[in-house]
């Protein structure tokens, strides 16, 4: 109590003192942030910089004595390769389709969770289960379900008995996208629900009195007020989807042209041990992710702190 009263007094009355207080508060803020900043530098900035240094070298762990500095040649190799652009396209397709479907489904689920009259806790918990399952486990479950030898999907009505889902480009991509949607829609729904609960009920009541239909209320009240939450949810999911790896790795390992850029990076780094080329791919993926975030934040005006759950 005492402290808040003091704070209320200070700004207008004594500007000189306030600036020294601001200074000391800023110092305190830095000190409080410092541990987190140091940890972030150690686990994020250092690996990124190291990857960049590696990407400027001809460096193959199988041929350690042939290491040399080659400037940006690795980037030239990657960007001039047909395979890179093919994989960028695949990643883009997976990203756009899965995020679009997740947004619609997530919104529906968020509305249901918000309006659920009974069993609210049960509904919310149930919806979250897929998100709680480890991606690799979920990917195996989907692979087994669709595999032509062991899967039950081929036995369902309306589906050809001998359909080999992982034997074609479109069908493999479809299963991968379905698994992604199943897995991360709950995340989307949760972020949207957080935005939904911040809209005051009075607005809906007033609109109802004015004779607005349910659709009008959704379009004129819910959507505009949820814009920050929606944009943040879409941004988070887009960033995640652009790095899709696990599902593809388990289901096809990139066969049938289902390779994403992350799989491409893995193949260069872990499979070929070509650290130079692989790091160039990784750095390019990082640049792509930064670009996506930049477009969302500057282009669509996402305010991450506003769209945060509870914000």
């Amino acid at each position, binding site marked *: 109590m005492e402290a808040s009263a003091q704070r209320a007094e200070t700004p207008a009355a004594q500007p000189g003192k306030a600036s020294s207080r601001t200074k000391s508060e800023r110092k305190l803020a830095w000190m409080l942030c410092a541990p987190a900043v140091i940890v972030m530098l150690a686990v994020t900035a250092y690996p990124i910089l190291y990857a960049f240094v590696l990407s400027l070298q001809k460096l*193959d*762990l*199988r*041929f*350690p004595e042939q290491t040399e500095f080659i400037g940006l040649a690795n980037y030239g*190799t*990657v960007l001039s*390769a047909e*395979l*890179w652009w093919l994989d960028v396209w695949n990643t883009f397709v997976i990203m756009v389709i899965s995020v679009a479907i997740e947004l619609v489904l997530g919104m529906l689920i968020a509305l249901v969770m918000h309006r659920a009259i009974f069993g609210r806790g049960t509904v919310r918990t149930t919806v979250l289960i897929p998100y709680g399952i480890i991606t690799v486990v979920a990917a195996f479950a989907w692979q087994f379900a669709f*595999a*032509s*030898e062991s899967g039950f999907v081929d036995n369902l009505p309306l589906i050809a008995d*001998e359909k*080999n889902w*992982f*034997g074609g480009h479109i069908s493999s991509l479809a299963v991968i996208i379905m698994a992604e949607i199943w897995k991360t829609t709950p995340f989307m729904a949760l972020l949207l629900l957080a935005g939904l609960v911040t809209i005051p009920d009075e607005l809906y009541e007033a609109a109802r009195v004015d004779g607005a239909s349910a659709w009008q209320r959704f379009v004129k009240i819910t959507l505009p007020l949820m814009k920050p939450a929606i944009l943040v949810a879409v941004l988070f999911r887009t960033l995640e989807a652009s790095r899709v790896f696990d599902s593809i790795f388990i289901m*096809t*390992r*990139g*066969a*049938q042209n289902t390779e994403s850029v992350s799989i*491409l990076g893995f*193949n*260069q780094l*872990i*499979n*070929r*041990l*070509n650290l130079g*080329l692989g790091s160039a*791919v990784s750095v390019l993926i990082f640049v792509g992710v930064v670009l996506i975030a930049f477009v969302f934040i500057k282009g669509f005006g996402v305010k991450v702190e506003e769209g945060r759950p509870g914000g």
Partner: protein
Amino acid sequence: MGERLETRRAKQALAVLLVSALAGAVLNACGGSSSGPPQLAFFVAIQPGGTIEATAERCTKEADGKYTIKPELLPNDASQAREQLVRRLGAKDSSIDIIGLDVILTSEFANAGWIAPWTGKEKEEASKDVFPSVLKTASFEGELYASPFNTNTQLLWYRKDLVPKPPETWDQMREVAEKLPEAGKIQVQAERYEGYTVWVNALIESAGTSILSGPEEVELEQVPTEEALEVIGRLAHSSAASPNLPTSNEDTARLAFEAGEAAFMTNYTFAFASAKENAPEINEQMGAAPFPKVNSNPAKPPLGGFNLAVSAYSEHQQQAFEAALCLSGEKSELTAVELDGLPPSHENLYTSKTVKKAYPGFAAVVREEVEAAGPRPVTPAYQDVTSAIQRALHPPESIPAENVEGKYDELKSDLEGAVKREGLL
């Protein structure tokens, strides 16, 4: 006050816990070298029949306190097992002592300096009575880098009740299968993985040429290579192809054969024991024939198996060489053939009772196949070469039944980049 005391106690308890955990970790780390016999870590692909555990236990006993062997089981899939090994060896990890090395990895690991060469008495003992074709897979630039354990080869498995006489060539086999009223399928391995390279290489070798003529030279004579590619293309576009052809591996092949859906299957020797256990009535009709030919040249069946190498970063190399000799010795090979149906790499064992019991009536065929086998390319850049083959030729339907010149050109140019480790793969 009471609360504070409790927090202090809790903190003390936590500190005790942390210290003891740390101490435990330190003790564990030192345990191997400071007290008792060294424990040798044996990294090797899992064998479902229990060969690895049984041989490790026997050799530990025979060492009589000089060392103990602890198996660290790797995935059965060759590429996944390799990933686990190269990650550790690339970081000079000393926790690996003995490596169960897939035959294709010798040149890569030897060239990178990850495995120690065999010399003197041990080299002599490791190579005694071993098939020359197998010994080649354990050597690099004239040096022996591993002691051959089990070898492996593919046979043509066929249904004696449906096919009176096994076909000699792939074309004959396809024609017979197409005419069969039921079970008219041929099971092979054509998923985008190492198994597809195995098949492609066997076909190219059988056609009379090779993929590489040296570590950085592509051979691929045009006419025989195109004949080999046509075999894949014609099968892929035939009714004899199984619906899961582009995702088929050793396991899906044997499952379909055991289910009675296929009259033919090219697969490793484990398929016989597997059918005996899962489908006895199919097993009774299971015939073993030599790997089919592509043209008039003799067939060159695939060659698989494991050789045991000693890590260059092992802290107990001398003991590791000794242990590897025991683990790959004749006794261990007989365990492998008994428990997992894996063919021995020692020629002299093929007349033993154990081998004859594991391969009833076809022990001689297995032996001839190993002798005639066409090994996969030998190059330190093997991973790039196999990736390029799989990328260029998968899915099998992408190879036309005729006029495969386009595919041939693609394969050749991709491989020429791969041997130099250029470009993305």
